[in-house]
């Protein structure tokens, strides 16, 4: 449980943000300059607050000096120690999971090098590794993956998920990329001009048509939890049961019985009034339309219910009219299996 | 026990020579004012040997000297030197003005503090030369610096002790200031602290004919007589 309230004037900018979050990953999402870095600096104790408090797991850290807070911090700029080797940097705060971290981040060949000769992405990997090896009681990450390429990003995300679920370390994660956020986070805090505009469980906010303008058209979508039913080793697909149907997803996503999180971006959902046939898309869910939200642009957000799960679809206004969609109507939601690539499929929540 | 003499820097050469026969006695040199202040601050000196009586008096008054041991040991002469080859100089304003030229300078120890400067100013005043030279002085912190200025040709004239002038080949003595134009140049010595046979013996050595001869050889005028 994290309970944070931070008030601070910085020139013309005023940060006045408070939120509480359960264990797990809390994503802080907001435009450039909205105060994300300042907020987590306040949590780390690096920004002296005008007022506020920081509580983690019931302990009040507000009055503790930075080094006693045991809060790991991956800075937006890497802040490696230039006079130390990569290995010395990594182990400065501890060397928990040393081998695993070095492996995951591909740092093996870099251990003797000095930060000055590293590439941008190599630097940020070292910075991530350094914060992980201290095994903090709370981990702050400020756009940690911005400089990483896609395969490495996927690996690190996977590790963070495991860290969060097995080691139970809460993470506060700042990012512009909703795909990262959605995969990891259980709680979402939306920040705008120094204030929290929305905070709560990620699934609720992402599948709320009213939140689409706050999050951005491309980022909205549902996050579902399903149970692994079985794995077909021949074609590498996994069957996942939802409350009212099943999905066939690529990859080995866990052993039967495991619970996993799936993000289904609103724009990847196709609606059909007739039951589709002869399609390459393997996944079709029967749904009922719960709400239709007409936005400013050419799009319409359609909120769907399938069993106890909620989905969000974004289609054109013209399609909605042509299909004659109405609240209460039964429709088929078509999801492409490949569209849910590893990056968007999270481990158990 | 080792003994230490605090002596004016200008005495270095003959004193060092004399002390070669005295193992266990070392000499420390410096400006007279500095040495006197150090002795008054408790310096480990057994005997002081300065170039001007003023600081002797100050020490005596401060009670650091063995009462009654202040002794006149040596005299000296002040002379005017010029770069080698310069003809003799008459002690007249005109001759000085001519020798100095429009912007030539007379190098001299600080007239307020360096003993040679104090004696020199006194003498030049008595000789009626002060007004001629007073705006043409180059005051320096030691006689040796004054000598160097003339040896290097930077200053056409320098006022120094005869003892210094003798050994610098680049200069020649062009005038000797009469001894009655200034208070007598006095090098005094005294022992420090309570009376003590060893220090007394050292003072006696300086007074002895052998001691006096060593200084005379360097150009000083022996004043101590048994």
């Amino acid at each position, binding site marked *: 449980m994290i309970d944070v309230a931070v008030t601070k004037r910085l*020139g013309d900018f005023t940060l006045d943000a408070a939120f509480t979050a359960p264990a797990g990953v809390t994503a802080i999402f907001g435009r450039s300059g909205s105060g994300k870095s300042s907020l987590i600096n306040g949590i780390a104790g690096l920004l002296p607050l005008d007022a506020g408090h920081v509580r983690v797991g019931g302990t009040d850290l507000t009055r503790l000096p930075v080094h006693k807070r045991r809060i790991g911090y991956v800075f937006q700029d890497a802040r490696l120690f230039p006079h130390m080797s990569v290995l010395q940097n990594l182990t400065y705060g501890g060397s928990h999971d040393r081998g695993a971290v070095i492996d995951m981040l591909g740092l093996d060949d870099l251990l003797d090098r000095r930060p000055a000769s590293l590439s941008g992405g190599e630097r940020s990997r070292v910075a991530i590794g350094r914060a992980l090896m201290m095994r903090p009681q709370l981990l702050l990450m400020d756009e940690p993956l911005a400089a990483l390429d896609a395969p490495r990003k996927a690996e690190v995300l996977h590790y963070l998920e495991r860290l969060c679920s097995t080691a139970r370390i809460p993470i506060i994660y700042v990012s512009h990329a909703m795909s990262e956020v959605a995969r990891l986070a259980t709680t979402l805090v939306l920040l705008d001009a120094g204030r929290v505009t929305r905070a709560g469980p990620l699934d609720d906010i992402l599948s709320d048509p009213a939140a689409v303008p706050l999050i951005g058209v491309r980022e909205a979508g549902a996050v579902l939890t399903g149970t692994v039913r079985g794995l077909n080793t021949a074609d590498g697909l996994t069957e996942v049961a939802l409350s009212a149907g099943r999905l066939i997803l690529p990859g080995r996503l866990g052993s039967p019985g495991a619970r996993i999180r799936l993000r289904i971006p609103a724009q990847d959902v196709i609606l059909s009034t007739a039951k589709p046939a002869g399609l390459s898309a393997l996944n079709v869910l029967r749904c009922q339309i719960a709400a239709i939200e007409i936005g400013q642009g050419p799009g319409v957000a359609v909120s769907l219910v399938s069993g106890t799960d909620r989905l969000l679809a974004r289609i054109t206004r013209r399609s909605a009219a042509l299909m004659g969609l109405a609240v209460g109507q039964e429709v088929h939601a078509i999801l492409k299996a490949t569209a849910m690539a590893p990056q968007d499929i999270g481990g158990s929540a | 026990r080792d003994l230490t003499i605090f002596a004016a820097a200008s005495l270095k050469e003959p004193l060092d020579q004399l002390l070669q026969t005295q193992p266990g006695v070392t000499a420390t040199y410096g400006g007279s004012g500095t040495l006197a*202040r150090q002795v008054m601050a408790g310096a480990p000196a057994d005997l002081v040997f300065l170039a001007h009586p003023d600081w002797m008096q100050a020490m005596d008054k401060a009670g650091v000297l063995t009462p009654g041991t202040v002794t006149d040991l040596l005299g000296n002469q002040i002379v005017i030197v010029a770069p080698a080859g310069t003809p003799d100089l008459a002690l007249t304003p005109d001759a000085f003005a001519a020798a100095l030229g429009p912007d030539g300078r007379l190098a001299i120890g600080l007239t*307020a503090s360096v003993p040679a400067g104090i004696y020199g100013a006194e003498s030049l005043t008595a000789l009626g030369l002060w007004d001629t030279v007073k705006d043409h002085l*180059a005051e*320096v*912190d030691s006689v040796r*610096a004054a000598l160097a*200025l003339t040896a290097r*040709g*930077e200053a056409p004239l320098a006022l120094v002790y005869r003892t210094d002038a003798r050994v610098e080949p680049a200069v020649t003595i062009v005038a000797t200031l009469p001894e009655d134009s200034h208070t007598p140049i006095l090098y005094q010595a005294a022992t420090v602290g309570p009376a003590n046979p060893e220090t007394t013996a050292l003072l006696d050595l300086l007074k002895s004919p052998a001691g006096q001869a060593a200084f005379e050889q360097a150009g000083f005028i022996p004043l101590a007589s048994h």
Partner: protein
Amino acid sequence: MSLDAAAWAAVALSLRVALVATLLGLPLAIAVAWLLARKQFWGRGLLNGLVHLPLVLPPVVTGYLLLLAFGTQGPIGGFLRDTFGITLAFRWTGAVLAAAIMAFPLTVRAIRLGFEAVPPGLEDAAATLGASRARVFLTVTLPLIAPAVLAGAVLGFAKSLGEFGATITFVAAIPGQTQTIPSAIYALLQVPGQDGAVVSLVVISIVLAMGTLALAEWLSRRMTARIAG
């Protein structure tokens, strides 16, 4: 205070000498610091040694060497006199030279540290924006090392105020011309019973130094504040 006109003249002269020495020495100090910090060349070690020499040698020796080189009979002094009609010996300008040379190692060191602390990428960035080497230096490097230049100037100014040995050996202590505060203090110290005047001059020195330091701190804080935003 119990000071006569000569003493006040020494104060005025000291200020002038220190100021001029600092200002004239600064460009050269910046150039030398730049060479030492950024360039590898034959004779670099020698230059570095030469710069530090006035620190290592007793001031009197430095003064004497100045006399040999810059006296009217010296090679450089003769050249300066014959070519530009400049005389240094026994002039306040000579005191400036002595002070500048004695202060030089201090100033160069501070500025060199400044050069070495400039973040490497910024000059590159300026070059990609089309700035010539000179423009990069004037608009990026110099402003970034300004605090170090200021620190060097303050050290140099302070040293110039306090310089004694080299100055009196090179240009003597001519009241109103070359008699600076330290020469005046030295003279007073050699005479019994002048302690009051000495204390006055020492206090003036201290006040001047404190004023300079306060000014420098203020300037430096302003510079840092500008960078901090």
